[in-house]
């Protein structure tokens, strides 16, 4: 019966182990100390477009997240037609940001559009360059992304940062470290 249920739910797989996302709350301090980066206080969830019959469910989930009282997300649409739910904390609070990202992922999953959750970004900076830790929601893995221009990234630095992500499930397949040029969370 459980199997039948999962077939009917059509949510294309359960979200990956939530622990993998929440682990950043504990890992952040070590990462900051090793890398010299500090959080900027932004995090975002990227939602890819869904089929027409699911669009309403997605819209409902987005609206509840952008209007819910104390910690609302802002909703932007990028040039790929993907929606970004962005959350800011001031002062920066990584633990709270990942908790909210997790809550947002749970909401879209509960609305039946969990498969739309493509990735989540948590922003860091070294003072003048932005660095994102990217979380692949479906795979439950993390990788660093260091954009240096419109379409350029600092991969040597990314490989260096990889070694500083102790406590996180780091994406081991480097071919999956795909960039998110100009993402609203950055």
């Amino acid at each position, binding site marked *: 019966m459980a199997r039948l249920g999962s077939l009917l739910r059509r949510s294309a797989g359960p979200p990956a182990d939530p622990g993998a996302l929440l682990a950043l709350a504990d890992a952040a301090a070590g990462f900051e100390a090793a890398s010299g980066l500090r959080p900027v206080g932004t995090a975002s969830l*990227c939602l890819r477009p869904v089929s027409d019959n699911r669009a309403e469910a997605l819209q409902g989930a987005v609206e509840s997240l952008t209007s819910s009282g104390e910690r609302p997300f802002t909703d932007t649409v990028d040039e*790929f037609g993907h929606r970004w739910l962005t959350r800011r904390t001031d002062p920066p609070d990584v633990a709270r940001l990942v908790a909210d990202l997790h809550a947002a992922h749970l909401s879209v999953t509960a609305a039946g559009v969990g498969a739309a959750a493509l990735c989540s970004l948590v922003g860091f900076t070294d003072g003048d360059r932005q660095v994102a830790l990217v979380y692949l929601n479906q795979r439950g893995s993390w990788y660093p992304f260091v954009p240096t221009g419109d379409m350029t*990234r600092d991969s*040597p630095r990314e490989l260096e940062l990889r070694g500083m992500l102790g406590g996180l499930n780091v994406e081991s397949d*480097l*071919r999956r470290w795909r960039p998110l040029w100009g993402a609203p969370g950055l």
Partner: protein
Amino acid sequence: MSTGTIRPDAGLRARMSLTIFLLGALYVGVVAILIASGINAGIVIVFAFVILFAQYWFSDRIALYAMHGRIVTPQEAPQLHAIVDKLCAEANMPKPTVAIANTDIPNAFATGRSPKRAVVCATSGIMRRLDQDELEGVLAHEISHVAHRDVAVMTVASFLGVAAGLVTRFAFYSQLFGGGVFEDDDRESNGAAVAIVVMLVSMVVYAISFLLTRALSRYRELSADRSGAILTGRPSALASALRKVTGDIAQIPTNDLRSAEAFNAFFFTPALANGFSISSLFSTHPPLEQRLAQLAEISRELGQPV
């Protein structure tokens, strides 16, 4: 052999001569065995020659087709054209056709039977990953291949390998289909035995010529690194580019997670394409350490910090 500032390379010439000599010696041996075996070798060799000649003659078109390269105008790719213009002016060579292959794999490729019919192709992936100086270093390496007429040389060098491969196959099929199973006379079983011997000999010949052409190819890569680095005067830019197109860094993609492009777009340049690419999964290229060491040495010769 060389034009303008791309200097002749005495060592390269010596190795080329040696390789061609050794291949020639093998060739003589193979022909002798073929004649002794009574197989109509002439047809096979002529066929091999025609195929290889076609590969050589149409190398520019075949390579572009195999790489999915698209010829670009100076308006479409001003940066790439500007670099090629500059390098060709400095090397005093005709400008090759410039093409771009739309793939995220960082690579660059040169081919063509002569400097006048040459194509230089860069992938969109390498153009996104390298800065101006690094891209110039890579294109100087590719243009050096063109100036050294490496396509012609490697075509000649691999001719015997291809011929031996064809003979292997020919011997195999003639043994398989030619020999009657129900005829049990001496002539037939003799023919089968000879075919097997020819097949084995061809395989050995093929293996040896393969190793020789690989060795020659590795040497020509180092030679192109050297000529290219001297042409630009910046060996460190090529060294930095090589680090970026090999190993872990080359695997990190530049195509957006949100784009529809498949994530696993790894492709091999088919063996059909005669030409030279900057990075290769096969052993036609010397190890990165060896190439970097040579470039560091050139930096020292030029009095630059490594």
